[in-house]
């Protein structure tokens, strides 16, 4: 199990995992992100908040180069991860995505068994040498996603037969099974009921001990509950970035304040 007895790490020791410099994103001729600079720290939950269409999901999809799959999307500037630019010519997006996992807004389990869903990533990346190792990876990932006790007796059943909350946790298990370094979550709770949401939120808190987690949410309460750092996006601009407590209690920018107090959104 996860080592929860380990003492909390000192904030000073946390190094920067991802740093974005002058990032611009265009869809065709439309600019979705303007001149964005941000530093995301390791072993931290960073929340992106802002009104819909503000570019938060777009930026999230830049971090694992998912935007490459959209023909009209174009990314400028640089996003450094552990000191190297992920948009360099030599970087293989396939390898990058193995390091940067992603969980989507709507649960999207493959129409395969629960086991195969979780084992898919390790299988394609060749992380297990034999069946026993694979079983262990699957179990660990499902335990990590707090799903193991619910599904351990029906691993061969279809992943699409689970409830919405279970499906989303299955997707999280699928993402953590490849042992990523960063986990991106795009509004992971928006399709879930309150109980499932709180389960997923608990999970995020646990995952922080191993990954850097970046979560996009439209719920400010959620951001306040789960994150240590918060970034506020508005109309393609990163307006304000800082400790979650500061953003919610002492916003520096009038737009942030307006959003938090519910006047824009």
């Amino acid at each position, binding site marked *: 199990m996860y080592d929860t007895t380990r003492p909390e790490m000192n904030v000073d020791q946390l190094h920067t995992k991802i740093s974005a410099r002058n990032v611009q994103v265009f869809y065709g001729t439309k600019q979705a992100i303007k001149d964005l600079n941000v530093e995301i720290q390791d072993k931290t939950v960073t929340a992106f908040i802002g009104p819909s269409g503000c570019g938060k999901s777009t930026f999230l999809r830049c971090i694992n180069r998912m935007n490459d799959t959209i023909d009209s999307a174009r990314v400028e500037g640089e996003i450094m991860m552990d000191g190297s630019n992920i948009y360099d010519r030599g970087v293989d997006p396939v390898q990058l995505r193995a390091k940067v996992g992603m969980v989507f807004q709507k649960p*999207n389990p493959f129409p395969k068994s629960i086991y195969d869903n979780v084992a898919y990533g390790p299988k394609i990346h060749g992380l297990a040498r034999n069946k026993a190792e694979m079983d262990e990876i699957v179990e660990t990932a499902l335990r990590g996603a707090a799903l193991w006790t619910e599904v351990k007796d029906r691993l061969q059943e279809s992943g699409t037969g689970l409830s919405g909350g279970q499906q989303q946790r299955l997707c999280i298990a699928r993402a953590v099974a490849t042992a990523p370094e960063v986990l991106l979550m795009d509004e992971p709770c928006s399709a879930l009921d309150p109980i499932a949401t709180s389960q997923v939120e608990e999970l995020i808190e646990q995952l922080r001990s191993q990954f850097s987690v970046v979560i996009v949410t439209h719920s400010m309460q959620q951001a306040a509950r789960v994150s240590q750092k918060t970034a506020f996006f508005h109309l393609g601009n990163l307006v304000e970035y800082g400790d979650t407590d500061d953003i919610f209690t002492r916003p520096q920018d009038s737009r942030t304040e307006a959003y938090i107090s519910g006047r824009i959104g």
Partner: protein
Amino acid sequence: MTGLAFALLLSASLAGYVMNRRAALALRDGGQRLHSLGMFHGLYALLLVLVPAFVVTVLWIMLQGSAINALTMSGLPDGVVTDAVNPQLILTEIQSIAGGRIFGEPEPWKLEAAERMNSLHAASGWLLVLVVAALSAALLYTSRRQVAADFRARQAAERIVMGLMITCSLIAVFVTIGIVFSLVFESVRFFQMVPLTDFLFGTRWEPQIPIRADQVAAEGAFGVIPVFLGTLVITFVAIFIAVPVGLMSAIYLNEFASRSFRAVAKPILELLAGIPTVVYGFFAILTVAPALRAWGAALGIPVAPNTALAAGGVMGIMLIPFISSFADDALSAVPRSLRDGAIALGATRSETVLNVLFPAAIPGIMGGVLLAVSRAIGETMIVVMAAGLIATMNINPLDSVTTITVQIVTLLIGDTAFDSPKTLAAFALGLMLFIVTLFINILALRIVRKYREQYD
């Protein structure tokens, strides 16, 4: 004469329109409040005249032929129609004489009958014109009498239009009923001559039967198994080529091709589907079969001149766009979120396609493949031109095999006599073809529909 009848009914209905509209407007000008606009009074008259007169004319044209034939045949002098001579053949000959195509020196009674047939045709034409004129006049009179201020002309006209539209949609059903009925009717006559079990389980198909009773010839044999076997061989060859090529093309176009390449390549691929089958047949005999023979000779393998490979291969080429468009649709219908899920895990595009999209799209693709199988079984011209005529118990695609459709066409091409088992056998084959393809089509359409619902 037919033209005159049509002109008559058209002008009568137009006259009805003008007349009733004028009458209605006159009522209005007389100070009465009309329930319907004058136009609808006119429209009502137009439809009331047009529809019955048109139906009568069309039925007349369709039915006059058999009536005239019956009259001609019954007017033949006694003794010329004997058991030895097929009355169908006599009728065909008289018809062609009447049409001005005289071969050799026909007997005088045939010339006479042909003349009588022509005069019957002329009489029938005049009678039709007369009937249409009388009918139109009667209907014009009826509709004119109905013009009144409170006559609901719009509702009446709309009722007629609604009836017409319902008839139109029922015609599609009638066509199916007509197909089933005609096939079953002739097949039943066939099975009175040849037992059903001989047909279904016989292993010899030799439909050459004596035309005259005294002719020495082999008894015809009507066992469908070798014909069916040949159909399967050719279908298998076609599917064996069309499915992998179509599928891989769809995967390439869907996943790897740039947008501009796709915009050019897809229509070119569709061209293959637009080429008439007779062209493919010609291609098979002119280019493919000789090429296959030459390659076979070079390799020391004997290849029959009309090998099943040529017909099946060309049919496979024809089916490529069919498979590829179905596969393309099925792959595109897989939700984007599944694709994103796989890619975000670090799967390459090919892994995404093969492990996630393709398994999810299999039902849709299967539906397309089944429809392609049904097409291949029912495809006619390619095999008529490029496959063999002799039915053998043989599944070697290098040899010549025959198919159901080839046999249907060979049995029916040229003059047909509807009382010989040879002609009727074609209908029995047709019935079998219809049942098999219908079954496959229903299955395929159901699979495709289920698949679409799953992701909608």
